[in-house]
């Protein structure tokens, strides 16, 4: 069975979620990956959306974070203030699952503006949403984003959500309770923060991807781990489940 780089990325992201974990899910690819995980190895994954649905078990892929199917299948639906204050903020969520328009060497995320001038941006993006507090308070964060030099930049134009700030110790200094980005999963491979420098480092490539492809698609001199592993190929079951999910969601 053949597969696309996009499929590999989503499957790798799904695999990163252990069964039973509480996962705060952003819409788009993170939601697809989390729902894929629920349909494959992690049936007891707890999906939490910022709309207030806790333990949603959607039969079809939601198109928004507030689709009816999330409320109908949730263990409980709480208010938006409650989901942030009682559930996210105190560190009850294991994994925050985020996308990004830009991400930098230290895992900081930008979803606000492209360009140097906030007041007169080159591109105005949607903004923060729940991401700053997801990045701050989840026990760990997984970022899923397609790799390109435009997206992977030396320094983000705007820090919407803090990764490791400007390096080791910054999260503690800022009082951020969660560990920060543990994995950055792309269509080419997986990066992890170096335990010493906190710098995102290529630790895994997807099947058929050369490390040089990943470094070429990164806007800073990407460090590559000494022992670089290769992502196991998607299984037939994973691909079938993913394609089934996407088919239901329509074009």
């Amino acid at each position: 069975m053949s597969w696309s780089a996009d499929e590999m990325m989503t499957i790798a992201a799904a695999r990163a979620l252990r069964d039973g974990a509480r996962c705060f899910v952003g819409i788009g690819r993170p939601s697809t990956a989390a729902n894929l995980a629920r349909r494959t190895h992690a049936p007891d994954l707890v999906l939490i959306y910022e709309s207030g649905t806790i333990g949603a078990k959607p039969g079809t892929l939601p198109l928004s974070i507030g689709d009816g199917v999330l409320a109908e299948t949730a263990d409980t639906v709480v208010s938006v203030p409650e989901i942030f204050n009682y559930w996210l903020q105190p560190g009850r969520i294991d994994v925050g699952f985020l996308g990004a328009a830009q991400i930098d060497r230290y895992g900081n995320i930008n979803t606000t503006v492209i360009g140097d001038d906030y007041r007169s941006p080159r591109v105005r993006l949607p903004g923060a949403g729940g991401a700053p507090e997801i990045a701050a308070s989840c026990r760990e964060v997984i970022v899923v984003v397609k790799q390109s030099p435009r997206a992977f930049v030396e320094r983000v134009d705007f820090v919407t959500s803090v990764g490791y700030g400007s390096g080791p110790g910054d999260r503690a200094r800022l009082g951020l309770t969660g560990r920060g980005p543990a994995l950055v999963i792309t269509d080419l491979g997986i990066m992890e923060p170096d335990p010493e420098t906190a710098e995102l480092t290529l630790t895994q490539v997807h099947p058929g991807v050369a490390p040089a492809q990943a470094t070429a698609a990164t806007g800073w001199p990407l460090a590559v781990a000494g022992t670089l592993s290769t992502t196991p190929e998607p299984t037939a079951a994973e691909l079938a489940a993913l394609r089934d999910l996407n088919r239901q969601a329509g074009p």
Partner: protein
Amino acid sequence: MGEITSLRDAIADLAFDGATVALEGFTHLIPVAAGQEIIRQGRRDLTLVRMTPDIVYDQMIGAGCARKLVFSWAGNPGVGSLHRFRDAVQNGWPVPLEIEEHSHAGMANRYVAGAAGLPFAVLRGYVGTDLVAQTPNIKPITCPFTGEVLTAVPALNPDVGIVHAQRADRAGNVQMWGITGVHKEVVLASKRSLVTVEEIVDHLDPRPGAVILPHWAITYVAEVPGGAHPSYAMGYSERDNDYYQAWDAISRDRDAFGDWLTSTVMREVRAILGDQA
């Protein structure tokens, strides 16, 4: 208090040029019809407040109603950008749009403080982000017991708060269920309020997950079936995903948007005026 009236009369009484207006609804129960009525009545210089400005605010901004937007996520969910919003921010068209930007947690807590009669809320948020430098409405606050420094945001108390809900009874008590977001908070935080509902019934039978707002906490209730379209009202309608997709093309182009405005929202004015003639 919970007076049942028409959408037109409610908006005419509540919304005024220069008002701070919050239309809330987190994907679900968005009061779109009320927003379009504000466009029809030609309100200007509004400060629009909303966690997730989406199509209805794109329409209001494109129609020139807004002077300022206070928000935390501005996009067409699952589709992409809000083009009227971008045109206003990047090019000042049709009028310049000032923005004040927050996170969801910050906005939600600002409504909580507003509903609770407090001048500010405290949260663990914003720390280390570049949002802090862009608004004076994010400040540090020190715990008087532990010395820990947290973040404070000021209360939101809009002049007008508007939401959509499933049902009201004839006394004006409102019942809503499914994802209710910050519905309760925005109604309680606002100086005056409007709830548009799918239907007015004799009796609100209890439902699992339902939130009730007593009539005396609401200024007006208006029956507007389908008033959340293209958003949805659980139990009454489905989200019109095609509309969200189609909006992308309409809103990309100023002329296409203008045609849409004339042929849909404003046509209803002519129909109404025709009725009166």
